[in-house]
């Protein structure tokens, strides 16, 4: 099963080579190389379908940090595979599309594709990992990749704003998710999601149930742009359009959906989960579709439309969590998940084409493109009508299922549904009307009407064939899924349903099928009503568009976010300025005082000042002499008026310490100390010229007294600490383990064996920190200089 791990890591590995390909193969668009990755993964996943459809499950685990119980375990069931296919399939199409969208000459393609591949790998990681910490890591990685991609055109202020906003909101959610996952692991004593699902009974009775649920939902809602966290998604539209199509409509924003679906077996069936997920989903659906209608920018319209469609899926998942009563909802959710990716992906690409070929996305300027861009027009019709829920497109089927789901929910007698349940179909119906309206706006405002060439920046023409391939493929899927929903349902949706509702399997399997026509049901009349009212409202839109102006600007969530951020920055600056004085001495003072208070305080509290001289070895004459030298040198450093003398004094201390190491037979330490001292003295010599004159501080007696107290405190405390540590062995010394270094690591030098083998992880991070510190020094000194030179 190594192939699976390899498959999941391929995007990251390939990302390493992208810059090289970009540099050494400038003739060929980098995208062609990248295209291989998602296509290959997609084919691999397709091959897994038969195994999973038969009910098989694949679980594998590679130890990653075994001491912490973190294993890179992967788990494939229907739900995972569904997402895996989406990620790789849409990914391939998006990369293909981007080859024509992103100019080879003007854009920094290597960055683009590296970020894209990182995202793809991370997203696959989320859905495939069974270990919660691995999942969390990939979760945050998608946020970071999204940040980088939104800020791809970082010269634009709006891009930076959007990127920051999305990062702040999704990372806050991510941290909540981490807390929730940790709570779950405390409850169930495992890091594996699969084992958590098996332990759902334990979780349900645990007092931490509700906090864990709320935290995880917070993570899911922020990621999936649910109300009121949806505000980041419209601003994320500053990203290049292929990215909007991929991350911000088809995959990343569905990570929250995945999380909710994945944890439905754990939390589902409770009233809190039902109403939170359903309610927030419904509000998001309604608010998103309502806001979409007022947008003038095609991409902004699609962004709000995505928000509302995500709300729809979320709402269905919520309803479906009452699984014993309504099983249609989960089917509808998963089906719509796929459908949304197909038609919304297609729409984003079409809007990208319009933007690319005309230079604008503003519906006030667009119009009359029908004859100029006939293929694009057709694609737009397919996508929009599917979104509006019209036949013969797949959106019709899932919209019907959605209505079935809410109607079934309205008739339930649990969770107070007997009183409030009737709201669900009504709200769903209203939201669908708005969906219908903006779908019409998308098509009609862009393509019908009169063509006014003077309103465009460039001469409009049909897109090149390569750019059209991806949306055409997606549009054909839109139609294909309408006529052959059973293929999809049998092979993908049913296995995925079993993953969301494991109880159903035991209760006799899933029987829902998707049918194109099931008689003159309420759902059909609802759809007809949507189309009729929607059409009327669309035609009368100028008369009632004033409604939107009544929405006060000041209570919008964007306003709160902006003010909150500005306020926080101001407050942080104020607090920071009070203690960041720019004087190193002050900082040292903070460190020392903190050290004395925390360490000294805890030692007093724990009553750990002890000293047993009996356990010490004899003190030799050499040691006495060396100590005296150290004391003399230290006093010299304090009293001298010349910096050079001080430097030499400090050097003396260092060399004497090295001699101590020699006496205590630690040649490695002695060597290191000697070389470090040598290099330090050289460094001092180098910066000697830059240091200011060593003026004794002219501060008053109080200043000197304070310094004296702090320095005495540190000195006394460290001495006491060393003595106490000697005489207080809390645990068995571990040094005996290292003495076996020759057998364990084949090394006779224990010190080095510890450094490179036993504690290799520490060393690796240490050299990393060291290099970062080096770069820090370099940039502190060099960068301001070069800027000054440029001026």
């Amino acid at each position, binding site marked *: 099963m190594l192939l699976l791990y390899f498959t999941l890591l391929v995007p990251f590995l390939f990302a390493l080579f992208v810059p090289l390909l970009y540099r050494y193969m400038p003739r060929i668009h980098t995208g062609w190389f990248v295209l291989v990755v998602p296509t290959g993964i997609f084919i691999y996943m397709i091959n897994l379908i038969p195994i999973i459809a038969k009910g098989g499950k694949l679980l594998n685990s590679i130890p990653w940090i075994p001491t912490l119980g973190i294993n890179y375990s992967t788990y494939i069931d229907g739900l995972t595979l569904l997402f895996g296919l989406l990620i790789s399939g849409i990914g391939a199409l998006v990369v293909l599309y981007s080859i024509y969208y992103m100019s080879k000459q003007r854009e920094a393609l290597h960055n683009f594709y590296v970020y894209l591949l990182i995202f793809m790998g991370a997203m696959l990681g989320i859905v495939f990992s069974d270990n919660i910490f691995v999942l969390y890591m990939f979760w945050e990685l998608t946020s970071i990749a999204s940040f980088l991609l939104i800020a791809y055109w970082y010269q634009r202020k709006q891009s930076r704003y959007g990127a920051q906003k999305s990062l702040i909101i999704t990372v806050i959610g991510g941290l909540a998710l981490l807390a929730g996952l940790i709570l779950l692991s405390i409850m169930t004593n495992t890091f594996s999601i699969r084992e958590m699902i098996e332990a759902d009974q334990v979780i349900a009775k645990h007092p931490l149930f509700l906090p864990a649920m709320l935290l995880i939902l917070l993570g899911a809602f922020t990621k999936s742009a649910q109300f009121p966290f949806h505000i980041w998604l419209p601003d994320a539209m500053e990203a290049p359009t292929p990215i909007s199509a991929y991350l911000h409509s088809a995959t990343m924003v569905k990570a929250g959906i995945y999380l909710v679906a994945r944890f439905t077996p754990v939390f589902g069936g409770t009233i809190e989960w039902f109403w939170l997920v359903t309610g927030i989903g419904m509000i998001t659906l309604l608010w998103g579709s309502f806001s979409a209608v007022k947008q003038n920018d095609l991409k902004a319209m699609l962004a709000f439309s995505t928000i509302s469609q995500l709300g729809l899926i979320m709402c269905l998942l919520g309803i479906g969590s009452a699984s014993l009563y309504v099983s249609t909802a989960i089917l509808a959710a998963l089906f719509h998940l796929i459908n949304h990716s197909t038609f919304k992906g297609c729409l984003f690409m079409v809007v990208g084409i319009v933007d690319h070929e005309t230079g604008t996305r503003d519906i006030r300027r667009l119009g009359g493109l029908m004859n100029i861009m006939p293929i694009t027009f057709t694609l737009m019709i397919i996508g929009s009508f599917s979104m509006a829920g019209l036949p013969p497109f797949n959106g019709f089927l899932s919209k019907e299922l959605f209505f079935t789901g809410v109607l079934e929910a309205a008739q339930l007698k649990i969770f107070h549904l007997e009183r409030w349940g009737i709201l669900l179909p009504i709200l769903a119906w209203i939201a669908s009307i708005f969906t219908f309206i903006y779908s019409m706006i998308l098509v009609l405002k862009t393509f019908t009407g009169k063509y006014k060439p003077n309103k465009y920046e460039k001469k409009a023409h049909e897109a090149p064939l390569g750019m059209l391939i991806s949306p055409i493929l997606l549009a054909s899927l839109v139609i294909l899924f309408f006529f052959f929903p059973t293929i999809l349902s049998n092979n993908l949706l049913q296995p995925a349903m079993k993953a969301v509702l494991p109880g159903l399997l035991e209760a006799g399997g899933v029987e829902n099928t998707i049918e194109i026509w099931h008689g003159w049901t309420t759902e059909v009349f609802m759809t007809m009503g949507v189309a009729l009212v929607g059409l009327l409202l669309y035609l009368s839109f100028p008369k009632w568009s004033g409604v939107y102006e009544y929405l006060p600007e000041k209570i919008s969530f964007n306003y709160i976010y902006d003010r909150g951020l500005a306020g926080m920055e101001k407050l942080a600056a104020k607090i920071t300025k009070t203690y960041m004085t720019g004087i190193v001495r002050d900082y040292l003072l903070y460190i020392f005082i903190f050290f004395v208070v925390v360490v000294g305080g805890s030692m007093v509290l724990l009553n750990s000042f002890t000293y047993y001289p009996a356990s010490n070895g004899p003190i030799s004459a050499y040691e006495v002499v060396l100590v005296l030298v150290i004391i003399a040198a230290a006093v010299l450093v304090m009293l001298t008026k010349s910096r050079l003398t001080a430097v030499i004094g400090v050097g003396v201390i260092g060399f004497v310490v090295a001699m101590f190491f020699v006496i205590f037979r630690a040649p490695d330490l002695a060597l290191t100390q000697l070389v470090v001292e040598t290099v330090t003295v050289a460094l001092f010599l180098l910066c000697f010229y830059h240091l200011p004159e060593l003026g004794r501080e002219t501060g008053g007696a109080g200043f000197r007294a304070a310094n004296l107290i702090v320095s005495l405190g540190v000195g006394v405390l460290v001495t006491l600490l060393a003595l106490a540590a000697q005489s207080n062995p809390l645990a068995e010394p571990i040094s005996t383990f290292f003495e076996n270094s020759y057998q364990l690591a084949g090394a006779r030098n224990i010190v080095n064996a510890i450094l490179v083998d036993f504690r290799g992880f520490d060393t690796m991070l240490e*050299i*990393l920190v060291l290099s970062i*510190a080096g770069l820090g020094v370099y940039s502190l000194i060099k960068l301001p200089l070069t800027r000054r030179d440029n001026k």
Partner: protein
Amino acid sequence: MKSNDVILQTVTKIVTFIILTFAIYLFLAGHHEPGGGFIGGLVITSALTLLYLAFDIETVREGLPVDFKVVAAIGVFIAVATGMGSLLFDQPFLSQTFGYFNLPIFGKTELATAVLFDLGVALAVVGTGVTIILSISGDA
């Protein structure tokens, strides 16, 4: 630092090689005797520092056109990469191993993956050390 350092320069020319040889010895000896990547790297740094002190930065850079920031990065990369290497053999990250081989000249020799890791450490130390020293002195 423009002064006539004939003695320093002459001595440096010879001493540097002695120090560098010693550094390589320290590095290789680290497995069984005092030494290792960290010390080896530090000694190399000190040798280079001596060079920079005796001659000026420009002269040394002509003879040794190396970007030490890159050296540091390569060092960290090697260290991480050797850690990754153990994953390929189904072992936890950063597992080290060793074995005894019969080599043509050296006879029975121990080869350990830890040395590769140590090489990363040494390069990181050299790169960082020289970068810091050069940045500070380059400001003069």
